[in-house]
């Protein structure tokens, strides 16, 4: 995993710091909300274009597609190292895309717009930073940086119970990541003591010689942070609250992106650094994932708030992702990562749509909704599409990932695969319930009855197109994943 592409122009840094630049502009021009809106839209669009350009230019590439390295905090050997392979590329693309959607869905943000857009942009820097960092302290910095804007997004712009949700979110994730920090420092000292080279570089730290006991403790330290973020049952309790109370853009970011950083942390850091411990933990991960799939589906079925249903469905879907990782083979891993991306798009779309529905009907309660199809045929069609994708209908995005995960899981252990299949059925149950009670049945009182506006079309069409495209033809994405995944599996010391 050595860099073989040296870009003369620091594209990765551009990608990383562009949103922060937008933040500063927003804060400076905070008196004109219109200007802020456009600045943030342009910023996110630019990031998307740059990321797309990077993707196109690196088709067929291998190793690190982009790489940057510079000295940063020298007394501790901390470096500013960024690297992008196929996995991080796809996740950065997803981030860029969903951020555009997040800005567009909050286009009419009335309450303190400048601050709002500024925070969404800070978050983008944090998330992209997590996907690009190859120095553990740099990674940790961005890992924490994601927290602060989300805390404020939930706490200031959230719904009724926002303060509780914001504090709970902050506390859970930070408590988890403090152990990550300790583990990072300890690993660094062990490595430095052995080699005399004190460094936080992922590549260097992988060479550390650890006793099984040390390895397991360090691994648990890393995984605590990641599992809470994913979130894996039983560490998921912060998620429904955070999702439900967050403003639409916050929900999109949470479900679409923040959860992915946990999975990314596992495959990029925890597994390669501690392969033997990871191997031992796989059955436990699989069990937690399976329990999560069923438990979340079961809870999702009795929720009356649409946002809560989707929140629990995220827990279930991420359960599939983790199950795929636990299966530990090429097929399952590709499936997991694909599912992650597709889940980001599908769930992002669902949260966007719930915001639109809430805008029109004034409620997210399933009991108070009904007959939307007759009033808003276009909106309902899109909603149906995203719901069907979420429940894993063949031909739509989520299915493509899920089927690969299931196949991989069968390969690893037929029992896991068998149980997970049943989980798919469960997800059909709660999603269909949402569709049934929101779209069909008697019409209820509505605040507005205009169908989709242009801005809303602009958000939904690309997302819907991707849902279909990735469902029918996921090959290009898998192409990007193939090499990095096989490298990760190999360097993890596995067949």
């Amino acid at each position: 995993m050595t860099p073989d592409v040296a870009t003369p122009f620091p594209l990765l840094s551009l990608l990383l710091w562009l949103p922060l630049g937008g933040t500063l502009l927003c804060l400076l021009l905070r008196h004109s909300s219109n200007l802020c809106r456009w600045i943030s839209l342009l910023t996110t669009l630019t990031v998307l274009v740059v990321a797309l350009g990077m993707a196109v230019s690196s088709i067929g590439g291998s190793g690190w597609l982009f790489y940057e390295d510079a000295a940063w905090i020298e007394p501790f050997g901390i470096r500013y190292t960024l690297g992008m392979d196929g996995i991080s590329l796809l996740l950065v693309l997803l981030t860029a895309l969903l951020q555009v959607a997040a800005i567009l869905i909050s286009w009419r943000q009335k309450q303190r717009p400048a601050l709002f857009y500024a925070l969404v942009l800070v978050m983008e820097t944090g998330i992209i930073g997590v996907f690009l960092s190859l120095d553990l302290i740099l990674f940790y910095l961005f890992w924490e940086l994601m927290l602060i804007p989300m805390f404020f997004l939930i706490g200031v712009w959230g719904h009724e119970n926002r303060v509780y949700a914001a504090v709970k979110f902050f506390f859970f994730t930070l408590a988890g990541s403090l152990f990550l920090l300790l583990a990072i420092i300890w690993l660094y000292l062990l490595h430095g003591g052995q080699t005399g080279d004190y460094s936080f570089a992922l590549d260097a730290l992988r060479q550390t010689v650890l006793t099984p006991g040390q390895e397991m403790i360090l691994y648990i330290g890393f995984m605590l942070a990641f599992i809470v973020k994913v979130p894996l049952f039983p560490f998921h309790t912060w998620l429904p609250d955070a999702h439900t109370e967050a403003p639409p853009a916050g929900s999109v970011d949470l479900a679409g992106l923040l959860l992915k950083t946990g999975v990314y942390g596992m495959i990029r850091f925890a597994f390669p650094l501690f392969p033997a411990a990871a191997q031992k933990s796989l059955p436990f991960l699989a069990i937690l994932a399976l329990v999560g799939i069923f438990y979340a589906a079961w809870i999702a079925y009795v929720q009356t708030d649409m946002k809560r249903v989707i929140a629990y469905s995220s827990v279930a879907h991420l359960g599939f992702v983790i199950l795929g990782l636990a299966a530990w083979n090429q097929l399952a891993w590709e499936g997991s990562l694909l599912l992650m991306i597709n889940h980001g798009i599908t769930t992002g779309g669902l949260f966007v749509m719930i915001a639109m529905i809430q805008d029109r009907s004034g409620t997210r309660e399933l009991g108070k909704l009904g007959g939307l199809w007759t009033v808003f045929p276009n909106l309902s069609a899109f909603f149906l599409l995203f719901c069907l994708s979420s429940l894993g209908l063949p031909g739509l995005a989520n299915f493509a990932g899920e089927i690969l995960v299931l196949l991989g899981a069968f390969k690893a252990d037929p029992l896991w695969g068998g149980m997970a299949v049943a989980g798919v059925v469960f997800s059909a149950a709660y999603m269909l319930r949402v569709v049934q009670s929101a779209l069909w049945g008697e019409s209820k009182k509505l605040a507005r009855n205009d169908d989709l506006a242009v801005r809303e079309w602009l958000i939904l069409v690309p997302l819907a197109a991707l849902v279909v495209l990735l469902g029918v033809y996921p090959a290009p994405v898998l192409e990007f994943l193939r090499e990095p995944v096989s490298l990760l599996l190999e360097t993890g010391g596995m067949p």
Partner: protein
Amino acid sequence: MENLAQIAMESVNFQAIMPSLVLCCFGMVLLLVSVFLERGRTAPICWLSIIGLVVTGIISINGWNDPQAGFAGGVVLDNFATFFNLTCLIAAGLTILMSDSYLHREGYPVAEYYPLILFTTAGAMWMASGTDLMTIFLGLEVLSVSLYVLAGFFRGQLRSNEAGLKYFFLGAFSTGFMLYGVALLYGVTGTTKVAGIAEAIRLMPDASSNPMIIAGAILLSIGFLFKIGAAPFHMWTPDVYQGAPTPITAFMSAGPKAAAFAAFMRVTYISLDSLQVDMSAMFWVLAVLTMTIGNFVAIAQKDVKRMLAFSSISHAGYALVGMVAWNEVGFSGILFYMLVYTFMNIGAFAVLVLIGKQGEDNLTLDGMAGLGYKRPFLGVAMAIFLFSLMGLPPTAGFTGKFFIFAGALKAGYVWLAILGVLNSAVSLYYYLRVMVYMYFRDPVEDFSWVKMEMATIVSILIAIAGVLYLGVLPGPVMELAKLSIF
């Protein structure tokens, strides 16, 4: 015992005491000048004292990498002392900047305030460069006596009186302990020189079981621990911090504390090096106790100033973790942390100074509701300081804690580091609560009384710059801290 006259002839080296000498001179000149100013006119004294601090700072920086010893080895101006000197000077500077408008608002425009701060700082610097227990004691007394006066500076206010008196009584008591310790160590070793004690103890076959040495070491430590505000000698802090004028609280929590750490470190690491195992064990318990008590009691506070007092106890605990580590990293970590703490804590108090009403320094959490919207700048500033106090990147609080805990882990104190981290998690609760009130609650008051005083704003801006610089690019200063080990 050498001939006194001989000592005076041979070892007078004004270079070694130049910074504190200059600062004392400034203080005395200012006292004189203030006589000729009409009552209530404090601005010239304020600015002159800032100039004094800057001049002293330049002199200190000039002495970098040029260690000077003098006065029969009683004083040494090495990098270690210089680093702490600069920390204390920064603390004093930030404090003075926020003081003038505050004194006028509270109705005590008394010029003597500034020379007193200068004397305190000089005492602190004296402590940092003392290599003889007597010199350190002298520094401590100069520092303490001025602080007693400053804590009770608002003589018409009951709470300030209480603060001054309490600090004085308990401080005098702890000084007694310390002197007892010095006397015992002198009794065993026959010297009060820091290095001499080390030498004598090393030559003793059974030093670590000699009751005189143990008692001496413990009593001496108590004196320092009291000044640091470490549990179980922390009882004075909340009341004194709450009652003292807010800028003085800010100053007390940073400058003198740093000085006490400096002297404490010098004494333990050099004189009591042979007792490392026992001392480390003692510090381990004290560090955990201090962090835990500070954090858990802070949770229960409704008054922001008092909450910050308890938080400052817990931060003394984090710094003590570096003492436990007893290695280069933990040790330079303390230097770095005290500097970081100076910026973030004084910054937070500066915000409190601005949003306090006349005669009501003591803001409740409710009183801060909606501050972030009514006074955006103050809200953002406070948020930055709070995030730093929590220890989140990219602020200095993170790099500081990182430094300290790296030291503890390097020395193998895994559990201590874990307990420290858990304590950080606890501390989130009360820091976040301030944030919740500032941003998630609707404003109750309109903060119309808040005057954005220029000097205070400058002090806040400097603190923000410090917090962000040390958080994002801590490399150079960390390097300096590592070079400052004696």
